[in-house]
């Protein structure tokens, strides 16, 4: 246990001291902030107000709360995965610069090395994502707070689940990488691509039917939807109380990806938890198997 905790300490320290890795992990959330600050926030604001029934005027605070909660859900959904990938790049960096040789000439078991990478990525990512969640909640309070205590806890649980998912997925993919060039390529693809396919940059509902069906097979999609549901259900409930018809709320939930459909069938929130939970368990299982089956370099 001493060995694993020493390795975890080393890995976490390295991640936070390596400015390259640390700041790369914040690129996607930064892109989202810029997108919302420049035009996306206004686009959504206009879209919400344009679709409201005639004669119904909602308070500015409510509209701000709606746009703000969409922003924070996007940031959190995407950060949990991209930060996990960047944090886990240490595993590849150790291979690329030869450090792993130094670790492997010691009597420490390869499985413990792999476990230390997994746990340290989990810790680093959770630190960043929970800090981001706290900042997001402060932001929400400043633009319009509609969350209940249970919403906050469920939101944090969603973050935890998504971080577990991102860490397990990145651990598997990074197992096959071994050079700095591969790190850059995968980092770029994940940072840019994951924001789209998880519906953080644009709601999945705005994609074509075919693409929506493909994305429905990706477990991360349900993680985004969970975050959306728990960050927005308060503000949507407040809208309903201010007289927005339930059909309009339902439509808004569809547009905002709070409701997801798998080939036309609505996926309930508990089912989303099951999908994500089973996926995390399966990915960790695959990672463990990869490490058990991994033999000495030939």
């Amino acid at each position, binding site marked *: 246990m*001493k060995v694993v905790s020493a390795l975890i300490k080393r890995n976490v*320290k390295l991640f936070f001291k390596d400015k390259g890795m640390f700041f790369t992990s914040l690129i996607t959330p930064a892109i989202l902030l810029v997108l919302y600050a420049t035009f996306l926030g206004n686009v959504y604001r206009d879209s919400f107000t344009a679709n409201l029934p005639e004669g119904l005027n909602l308070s500015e605070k409510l509209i701000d709360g709606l746009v703000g909660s969409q922003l924070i859900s996007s940031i959190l959904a995407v950060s949990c995965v991209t930060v996990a990938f960047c944090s886990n790049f240490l595993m590849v960096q150790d291979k690329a610069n030869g450090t792993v040789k*130094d670790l492997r000439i010691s*009597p420490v078991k390869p499985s413990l090395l792999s476990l230390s990478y997994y746990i340290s990525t989990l810790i680093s990512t959770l630190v960043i994502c929970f800090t981001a969640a706290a900042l997001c909640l402060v932001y929400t309070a400043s633009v319009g707070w509609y969350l209940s205590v249970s919403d906050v806890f469920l939101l944090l649980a969603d973050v935890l689940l998504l971080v577990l998912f991102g860490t397990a997925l990145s651990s598997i993919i990074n197992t096959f990488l071994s050079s700095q060039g591969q790190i850059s390529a995968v980092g770029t693809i994940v940072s840019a691509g994951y924001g789209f396919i998880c519906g953080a940059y644009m709601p999945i509902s705005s994609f074509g039917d075919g693409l929506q069906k493909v994305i429905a097979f990706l477990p991360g999609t349900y993680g985004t939807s969970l975050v959306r549901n728990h960050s927005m259900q308060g503000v949507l409930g407040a809208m309903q109380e201010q007289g927005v018809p339930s059909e309009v709320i339902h439509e808004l939930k569809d547009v905002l990806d709070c409701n997801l459909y798998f080939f036309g069938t609505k996926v309930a929130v508990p089912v989303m938890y099951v999908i994500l939970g089973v996926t995390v368990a399966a990915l960790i299982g695959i990672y463990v198997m990869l490490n058990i089956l991994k033999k*000495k370099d030939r």
Partner: protein
Amino acid sequence: MQDIIRIDHLSKSFGDVKAVRDLSFRVKEGELFAFLGVNGAGKSTTINILCGQLSKDSGSIRIDGADPDRNADQIKRGLGVVFQTSVLDSALSVRDNLESRAALYEITGAEFRSRVAELSELLELDELLGRAVGKLSGGQRRRVDIARALLHRPKILILDEPTTGLDPQTRKLLWNVIARLRKEENMTVFLTTHYMEEAADADYVVIIDSGKISAEGTPLELKNAYSGDFITIYGIDEDTVKSLGTDYERLRDAYRLSVPDTRAATELIVKHPEIFCDYEIMKGKMDDVFLAVTGRKLTGGDEQ
């Protein structure tokens, strides 16, 4: 002295490339063993197999009586390795690096602090402990690499070109430390180097070329077998040197005669005592041995 490393008929290929071919040699406990060869000769492959980083195709290895395939952990506890290039974490301090590596051998807490204090004294690391490894000079970093390799008091220290690019002062410090450890702890040192003067101090030398052993023996045996002797003679003119009928080379204030061996040198001196008033006899250098064995020179990292 008993064998601490026994390698018999070791072979390893990467695809069509035969990196190591039927290699057999012994390393005695406590000796300085030099393993020489040009780049690509198979040195690193052999070391990687010894350290359990690579699997062998065939042959057998025993390190301190244990088989790396079956008792890898036991062997790793007795091996310290200084790699060609530093593999420590540049962003972390020297102390953090040593702490994380010591923990791999379950050396923590007071035991770690005590060991670091010993190594700091030995390698003059006191002022470096709080500094980031990435900010150290090449020589300072090398001292830290050696401290890392010695953390767990290994029985065998593998030095893979440890002094390449180092300043003379750091090289001297390094060799003093190694000499002290060999004397006080009977540590075996397995050395690969491009500096032939370092190999000349070894107890036993193996030269490999294209994965096979080309020559082996003590430096004296190798010099006797592969290089002649030299007599440097002072205070005579060139005509007198010519009269000896031997190959010679003109130096600034002397002439250097080449003779096949020490016996021939003695015969020459006995035959012309009036000429040999001020002279010295030297064995050939390990550079000459290496050149004679492989047909190539090793000069500070590059083959020629």
